[in-house]
Structures are given as C-alpha cells and as structure tokens.
C-alpha cells in the first residue's frame, strides 16, 4: 500500500482492508460546484478507485470564492473538464471521468446507474436545485444505490444519507411539508466558501465511512450545520405516502 495513504490507513479501525475497499469503490458526484469540489478533492485524495463527475455548467467568476478546483484561467470552460484535470493532477491513482451535462429526467437512467462494468457504490448529491435532487433520489431508489445529499447556503449546511437497502428509508422530500416541495428556490444563493468546504468535508467523511464499512450510516438523520454558532443539530422525519418525491416508491410509506 502506498505511503500516500499512511496517515489514514494507520488510524485505529481503518487499516489496509478499509483502504482496499475504498480503492475498489466507485462514486458519482452530481454537481461540481462548492460542495462537489470539496467532495471530489477529499474522496480522490483518500483513494477512491473510480470517480465520475457530472455537471453541465461552465466556470464563472462568482464561483471562485468556494470552487477551489478552478482558477481565473478556467472562466468560461466546462466545470467537469477542469475538475477532471484538477483531480487527475491531485490524485493520479484515481480513475476519473466526466459527464458534461446536467442531470435531467431524460438522462438520469443512463447517468446514475453507470455501466454494468462500473456501477456506482454511492452517488453524492452536490446539486443546487430541488427538481434535480428529486430526479437523483428517485433514480437512486430505483437502482438501489445509496445517495448522500448535501446542501449549503450562507453559513448553513445540511447532509442526509438515503440508502434504499437499509430500514427506515426517508428521503429528502419527506422533510418538507407537501406544498413546500414545489417552492421555488431563492436566486441567487449566497454562500461562504468555508461553509461549502465544511459541508463537503462532512459528506466526504461520511462517504469514506460508508464505502469502507468503518462507519455505518443511518437513514433518516439530517445533519444541520450552523456556522453562525458552530453547532451541528440532527432532525428526523416520518416517511410519508404523501411525499412528493418518494411517496410512490416502495411500499413502507406511512398512509
């Protein structure tokens, strides 16, 4: 095992076995904005074997307060192309690929499951719209792929793990009152770069735990980071048949 990973391999409870599991795992990162940059950085540097980045956006000047995989020279260029190059440079052992497109209902069944030879161990939701998240949740559920959601605004963040294979599955939509699921987001979203970094790092830490089996993540626990007082709270919800996202998926929703 390469000395590159010594500092984590030697952590109590981690070891070479966990590192090999990480090396054999494959992740899809949806969105390479503030969260996606942090997630891609920490997962690639930790030694994830394969990584696919998916985003249809180009780099803009206002991205550069938090999206540290890009520089001023990248403005106007595809985020995915730039991020793939940056990750390859940072972590040459990782096989990294890019999908230069937004996730939509038209491409979700191709993007999310991956190819048969390379289906994903986990999908990371670093998206920035509820509509795209709804597609990600429904597609991951249909293909039985764990989905780790993150979001951030201003000084605040939230992280939720949704594994269709575990009991107590509750999706992001179950946390919202029904009418609010169609509430448009407020544009533009203001965010401190460090907030995106913290929340993305929380996601990467949780993903490493789940991919290596060193930490068992639980469904139905949304972690709420409040950077104004540096506190992390937890919320849970009840899965509801009326959920606009997962209400018609599976059969264990409360009626």
């Amino acid at each position, binding site marked *: 095992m390469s000395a590159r990973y010594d500092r984590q391999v030697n952590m109590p409870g981690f070891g070479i076995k966990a590192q090999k599991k990480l090396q054999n795992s494959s992740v899809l990162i949806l969105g390479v904005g*503030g969260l996606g940059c942090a997630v891609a950085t920490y997962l690639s540097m930790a030694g994830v074997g394969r990584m696919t980045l998916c985003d249809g956006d180009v780099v803009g000047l206002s991205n550069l307060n938090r999206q540290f995989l890009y520089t001023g020279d990248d403005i106007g260029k595809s985020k995915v192309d730039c991020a793939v190059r940056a990750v390859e440079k940072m972590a040459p052992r990782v096989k990294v690929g890019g999908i230069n497109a937004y996730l939509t209902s038209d491409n979700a069944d191709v993007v999310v499951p991956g190819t048969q030879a390379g289906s994903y161990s986990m999908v990371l939701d670093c998206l920035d*719209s509820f509509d795209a998240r709804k597609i990600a949740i429904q597609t991951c559920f249909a293909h039985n792929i764990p989905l780790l959601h993150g*979001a951030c605004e201003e000084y*605040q963040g939230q992280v939720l793990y949704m594994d269709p294979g575990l009991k107590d599955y509750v999706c992001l939509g179950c*946390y*919202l009152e029904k009418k609010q699921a169609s509430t448009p987001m407020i544009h533009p979203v203001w965010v401190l770069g460090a907030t995106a970094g913290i929340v993305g790092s929380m996601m990467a830490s949780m993903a490493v735990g789940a991919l290596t089996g060193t930490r068992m993540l639980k469904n139905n626990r949304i972690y709420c980071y*409040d950077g104004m007082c540096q506190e992390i709270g937890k919320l*849970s919800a*009840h899965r509801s048949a*009326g959920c606009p996202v997962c209400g018609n998926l599976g059969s264990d929703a409360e009626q």
Partner: protein
Amino acid sequence: MKIVLEICGMLREKFPFDMHAFDLPEHSTVNDLIRRIDGHVGSQLPGSVWNREKKFFRGPITLSIDGVVITDYSIELKENQHIKCNRFLIGG
C-alpha cells in the same frame, strides 16, 4: 396555550426575535401558528424571508418538535410545545 417558536440558523438574523412565546387558543394547529407569525412580525420581515401575499415563508423551511420535522401543518399543537424553525437548504 403557550407555544414557543425558536428561529434557527440564518433565519435568526432576519427575525426580530430568536425565540418567542405565542399564546394560542386550545386546539390551534401549525397553520394557526403561521397565521399568528404573520400577524406578529410578517410586516417587519424582509421580502426575501416572508411572502406577504401568501403569508408564509419565502423559500422552503422546516418546523420541528423534539427533533422531528412536522410535515402536516393541520396537526393540533399542545401546551408548551417548542417548535424550531430552520431554513431548508437548496444550494450546492
């Protein structure tokens, strides 16, 4: 009956209070509480936080009791319940 509303996270800066005890009639629901918030501070809140036409928050929020999110706003509240209000985040 007394219902305590606590404003959390980034909404805290936009509200004139962090925590407020509302006195509501017995059998009041979450919807009644929201109407009371509108009457109490709706006109003082910035348009980015409160939709004065809909008399509701602008952008999604969660209301929770004892760490569990309420998704049915027609449920009746109970004396001395402590409700936390948090912005539901969308940005990435």
